[in-house]
């Protein structure tokens, strides 16, 4: 199994196009960091405009590495699924396209094992992409902007997290994001089974993610309690829940607390069920498939 995984990883990381998402992520992060470095105050003034009349706002302290990383993740974690689809959507269909899929399945390895290895390889790629993103968005931002307490602007609440209470939340958020992105990888992987070239599954995955994300973000009562709770895109943003604190009876944030941990865990379970469902469907379909390419 380990040898097969190494072979798959070798195949993924040998291709130059594998590195395009790494480059795109680096470029996007650096652009955001540069913008916030030179004009972060304007961004904060926009976010905190309704507070500035009542409070002295220490803008230079608020614009720190923790906040910058949050802004980056807020922006990028919507686009990164598309980058994940580039590799996961290619992993089976790419072999079919090159005519190597039939050669692959005649080897003395079961199709189930072969697919599981390919899916794990996609997950490893996804995690690598996320680690790259974490290094650039969090650690580089900490280096460039320093650290301090973290302020988060929500729809109706502004949250403050002590600097000593931030890092574990990022670790939890990145861990959750890995599962969320693996769900997209699993979807692309499933679609990849049905295609003979990579473009179809990649474009289909991107389309599904875009449509479902729009549906998840729309505030339409008809969908709110019927469709949205079951869309995986509705649960992909739950990483943010780790940055929402509980408050005591007097409105003060409780350090080390999470506002609604059961909801986050519920979202995690939904995503895991989706991953299991997508991968199982891919395996079942692939086992029944008459491979001609």
């Amino acid at each position, binding site marked *: 199994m380990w040898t097969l995984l190494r072979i798959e990883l070798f195949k993924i990381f040998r291709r130059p196009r594998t590195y395009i998402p790494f480059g795109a992520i680096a470029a996007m992060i650096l652009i955001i960091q540069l913008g916030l470095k030179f004009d972060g105050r304007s961004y904060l003034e926009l*976010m905190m405009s309704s507070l500035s009349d009542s409070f002295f706002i220490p803008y230079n302290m608020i614009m720190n590495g923790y906040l910058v990383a949050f802004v980056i993740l807020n922006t990028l974690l919507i686009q990164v699924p598309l980058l994940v689809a580039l590799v996961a959507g290619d992993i089976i269909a790419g072999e079919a396209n090159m005519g190597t899929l039939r050669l692959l399945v005649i080897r003395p390895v079961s199709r189930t094992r072969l697919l599981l290895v390919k899916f794990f390889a996609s997950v490893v790629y996804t995690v690598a992409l996320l680690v790259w993103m974490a290094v650039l968005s969090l650690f580089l931002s900490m280096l460039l902007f320093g650290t301090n*307490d973290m302020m988060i*602007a929500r729809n109706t609440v*502004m949250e403050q997290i002590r600097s000593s209470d931030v890092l574990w939340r990022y670790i939890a958020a990145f861990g959750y994001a890995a599962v969320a992105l693996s769900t997209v990888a699993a979807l692309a992987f499933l679609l990849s089974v049905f295609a003979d070239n990579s473009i179809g599954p990649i474009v289909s995955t991107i389309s599904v993610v875009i449509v479902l994300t729009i549906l998840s973000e729309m505030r339409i009562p008809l969908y709110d309690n019927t469709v949205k709770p079951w869309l995986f895109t509705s649960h992909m943003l739950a990483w943010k829940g780790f940055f929402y*604190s509980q408050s005591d009876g007097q409105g003060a944030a409780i350090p080390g607390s999470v506002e609604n941990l059961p909801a986050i865990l519920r979202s995690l379970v939904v995503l895991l069920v989706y991953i299991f469902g997508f991968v199982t469907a891919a395996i079942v379909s692939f086992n029944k498939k008459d491979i001609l390419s």
Partner: protein
Amino acid sequence: MKYFLIVVLGLMGAAVRAQAPDVLLQKVRARLDQVNDYQATGTMKTNVPFLKVPEAQVTVYFKRPDRLKIRNDKGISLVPRGAVTISLNNLLRGAYTVLDAGVDTAGGRTVRVIKLLPKDDNADLVLSTLYIDEPRLLIVRARTTTRENGTYEVEMSYGKYGAYALPDRVVFTFNTKDYKLPKGLTFDYDDGSKKNAPAGPARGKVELIYQSYAINKGVPDSAFQ
């Protein structure tokens, strides 16, 4: 003759009462004037409907006549604007008309109520009402109405620094504006629970509990930057 004496005594009594608030206020101010500067450490608790911030350890710097700074050296603290501009020293500065508004109770004590009307028509402060613990010569509550930012209220409790008119605990209440950002900007995670958003502008409260004061030991100007 009897009626004449009653009228004269009544007028004299009224004159004595009219003088008393000025005298009382001078005594209170003299007590405040003992302090040229101080550096105090304390805990700041913020209770504003749309803010979720943890308790903060703060250092408060003061220097006469009216410089006040609240700093959190270990993190960020959002300090209400009025907490700095509406200090007692600021309230008692400038020219104003003093009115005796009788007595009331505050913190279980009977207090004198004095109203200050600024003589400057363009002043931001429109009216200040001071609740003074007369035997101790301490202001225990101040309510200030401003032209631009509504009404501020400050409540003070005194302990071992009462001789310097420095409180152990200050509760500052102020008006806040509505806070709401578009969901398309924040991309909040919707966990499915019903949340009661703060309904419109509300009153915010900041509580400062002082642990210690260093009085008249000198405070560098750099502390106020």
